[in-house]
């Protein structure tokens, strides 16, 4: 795979290679963050110096179906010893689904000095790089979030999506074709995250998240991505776009691709996704 800077991305600086991470393990201005689906992976071995941000325990409000608020985010950021100036590099399992999800949440609070390790945990392990079970400790900071949680710029809520649909806006459904068609009411293996109705949001194009990734988990180059999203599916980078999946984690991967690698102007992730839309009263679906 070509060097990240040679792949034609609009914002290549949001991606770093495994080599870059290996060279920056002791860089005090960099914090490596692992975010996984399987909770046993981080404690079983992680990149030396990496901290864990767990999607369930750290990023979600335990009561409301929502993300943590500003205070909780500041407490989390302080605990992992970062300041607003720290470069935070995310990586994880499942092709970086959860890493891009955590990346997206950090950006909701204006922590934009964020990057993703291309290829994620799978590539790091495949290359035989060091793993450790030692959990690092960093001096706690007094982190002040750059902004309140911004639920408008990169996040779409149900009512936003409804207006977007009524305005015939661009939508990208990143689920599997069977979920998109309504043949399946949930992703294989995730029946409790299903919906009463099968199908998709009217007008949505079906572009499964995995089409943006190579076999080794790295992102395809810009030319290959353009061929899929723009040439094949006809998406216009100048028009507002909403991505969604089942709960918002796979679509954060596609949000990352559209926003940073292809430079679409206005991309929002609809984290309510099909588990909300498919069960909502008063919203239309298409099969």
């Amino acid at each position: 795979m070509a060097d990240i800077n040679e792949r034609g991305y609009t914002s290549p600086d949001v991606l770093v290679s495994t080599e870059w991470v290996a060279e920056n393990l002791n860089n005090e201005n960099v914090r490596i963050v692992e975010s996984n689906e399987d909770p046993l992976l981080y404690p079983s071995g992680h990149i030396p110096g990496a901290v864990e941000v767990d999607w369930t325990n750290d990023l979600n409000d335990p009561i409301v179906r929502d993300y943590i608020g500003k205070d909780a985010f500041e407490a989390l950021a302080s605990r992992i010893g970062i300041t607003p100036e720290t470069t935070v590099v995310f990586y994880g399992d499942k092709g970086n689904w959860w890493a891009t999800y955590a990346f997206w949440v950090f950006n909701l609070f204006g922590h934009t000095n964020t990057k993703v390790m291309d290829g994620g945990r799978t590539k790091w392990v495949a290359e035989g790089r060091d793993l450790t079970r030692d959990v690092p400790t960093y001096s706690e900071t007094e982190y002040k979030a750059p902004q309140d949680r911004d639920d408008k710029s990169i996040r779409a809520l149900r009512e936003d999506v409804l207006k977007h649909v009524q305005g015939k806006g661009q939508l990208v459904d990143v689920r599997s074709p069977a979920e998109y068609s309504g043949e399946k009411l949930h992703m294989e293996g995730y029946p409790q995250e299903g919906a009463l109705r099968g199908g998709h949001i009217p007008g949505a194009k079906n572009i499964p998240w995995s089409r943006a990734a190579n076999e080794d988990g790295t992102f395809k180059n810009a030319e290959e991505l353009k061929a899929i999203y723009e040439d094949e599916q006809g998406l216009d980078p100048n028009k507002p776009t909403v991505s969604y999946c089942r709960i918002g984690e796979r679509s954060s991967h596609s949000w990352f691709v559209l926003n940073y690698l292809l430079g679409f102007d206005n991309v929002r992730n609809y984290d309510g996704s099909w588990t909300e839309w498919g069960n909502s009263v008063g919203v239309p679906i298409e099969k």
Partner: protein
Amino acid sequence: MSNIPTKLEETREDFSFITNRMERQEYLIQLADGFNEVKVPERIASQPYDESHRVPSCESEAFVWAEENEDGTLKYWFDVLNPQGLSAMAIAVILDDALSGAPLDQVANVQADIVFDFFGKNIAMGKGQGLMGIVNMVVAEAKRRQGK
């Protein structure tokens, strides 16, 4: 008296004493380290495996087999093709230890949500379903051999 295998009840009780998340994770990782002991031997199955043994709801690509013991009980065998599927490996070790050789009618009574007794309630969204799928597959084997 419990209607599930005694060993499973004991395992569940052991886990109930673990209240610290990190301690729980360490214990589960230790169990996963013993996965080779329950990994299906070639005399039972070799890759590519028959898809009928695939756990339909497991992202870690888990497979389950059952071999009949002389006393009519079953010995359960597993494979997990995703090398990062540690949780799947851990539950396989737990199930082999607690259910292999247990009376089939008791195995048939095991409820899939027992995985939350081992992994905790805060397991990532969706993860529990794959693990419950492995339990369901073992229970289904027991029921099938009972002719249910």
